[in-house]
């Protein structure tokens, strides 16, 4: 990955969030408060504006700016979580180009930040349920090159998101529903899957 690819990833993610806004909101209406889509759209719109005036010289600059902007603009649970994750990844990647193994390590830093801030474990029906398997899959496939690793992460994140359907939420707003939270896919895990999907997309386009 290089700075350009990092930029492309964030741009593609912003476009995907825009397209998927109402789907994410619909998922959040079922077991939350119906704002996950608009939260992320507001955040990524601001990220695009912020990146437009930035002349980043490293992957880290792109990802850190993404993180701080998300923290400043999203609010809710997803803002600090995604924001901290991107900030942590940015910190882990101060360089202009990164190997798949370095990117894998950065993703793991992102996961750590999410878990440290939110305290969620796998199976709690959160972002973690997509991010954790995606990171693991990426790392396992890192030796096969970036496109393969990204594809593996994409598939694992999608699977992780789908696997949240039967879970009962233990963190976040959905947990208030108790058993009524089962039978629905978690919005945050779904937006994480989207993040890993756009990563795979831009990797192939590059």
């Amino acid at each position, binding site marked *: 990955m290089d700075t350009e690819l990092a930029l492309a990833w964030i741009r593609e993610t912003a476009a995907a969030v825009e397209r998927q806004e109402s789907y994410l*909101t619909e998922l959040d209406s079922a077991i939350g408060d119906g704002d996950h889509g608009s939260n992320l759209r507001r955040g990524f719109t601001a990220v695009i504006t912020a990146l437009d005036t930035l002349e980043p010289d490293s992957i880290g600059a792109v990802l850190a700016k993404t993180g701080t902007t998300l923290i400043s603009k999203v609010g809710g649970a997803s803002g600090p979580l995604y924001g901290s994750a991107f900030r942590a990844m940015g910190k882990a990647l101060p360089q202009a180009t990164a190997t798949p193994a370095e990117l894998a390590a950065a993703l793991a830093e992102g996961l750590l930040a999410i878990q440290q801030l939110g305290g969620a474990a796998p199976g709690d029906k959160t972002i973690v349920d997509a991010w954790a398997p995606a990171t693991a899959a990426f790392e396992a496939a890192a030796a096969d090159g970036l496109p393969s690793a990204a594809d593996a992460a994409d598939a694992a994140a999608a699977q992780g998101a789908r696997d949240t359907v039967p879970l009962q939420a233990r963190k976040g707003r959905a947990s208030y529903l*108790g058993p009524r939270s089962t039978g629905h896919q978690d919005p945050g895990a779904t937006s994480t899957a989207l993040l890993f999907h756009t990563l795979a997309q831009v990797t192939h386009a590059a």
Partner: protein
Amino acid sequence: MKKLINSPETVLTDALTGLAAAHPELAVDIPNRVISRAGRPGRPKVAVISGGGSGHEPLHSCFVGRGMLDAACPGEVFTSPVPDQVLTAVQRVHSGSGVVLIVKNYTGDVMNFQLAAELAAEEGVEIRTVLVDDDVAVEDSTWTAGRRGTGATVMVEKITGALAERGAPLDQVAETGRRVNAASRSFAVALTAATTPAVGKPGFDLPEDEIEIGVGIHGEPGRRRERHRPAAELVAEVVDTILADHELTAGDEVIALVNGLGGTPLLELYVVYGEVRARLAERGVRIARNLVGNYVTSLDMAGFSLTLTKADPELLELWDAPVATPALNWS
């Protein structure tokens, strides 16, 4: 969806513009989304700040004023404020005696305030956080993010505000806030779902004869759905649910809040209050002070919540202390 707004994107800015115009006694920083008292306090005091998603008005913005909040940070509708906002509020109103942040226990609010608290602490401001988690509808705390913060926020803000106004030190203000929260329990029932401007349709579908028992103030569905019933039956269940979790015994006194969720007429809230009083009287619990009206709303949701705060002479005295805010005002 029919709403008196210009667009979902501008609703918060437009409402703050109106708030600023209506209340010259408030300083409304529209770009930064911080409401504070106009003019600085004469002497140093502990600053009390709260905030949370918009759509719950008069909470928190209309509780800024003498005897209550020093500042409020409204987030987007049903979305917690961001750390920058809270930090700006801290910077604006702290006067060297420390700051109490009153935070409703939602994951988003907790994390955003926590990030802000860390930033403020880095700037050398002493911060205490009082978490409000009074909603007994949330049952099993090992399976959940813990109880939500709802109606008790009014009691916590009023009482900590009164104490701070008197010049009490930081830890005492924070400790008293925690004590009020610990003495409070709430429970809500929704007759209809709220419609957020961004979504444009009700957060959940509720058949004509069903209600959500234990609903949240962000349109989170409740514990379960039941058939609608007469007010007396409904209130009995709500009171009993709260008492089952509250160490109230015959002879105790409470501060009671019968709170409209936004779409329920005041006429009905008084019906509810009458039933609450009667049910509590059967249990020997006396209402020493009350509020009946829309205080912690959920946009246009029809329904009510009940909050009971166990009272003692100190809390009652602080409750009675003068307050001058757009929504609570007595002397």
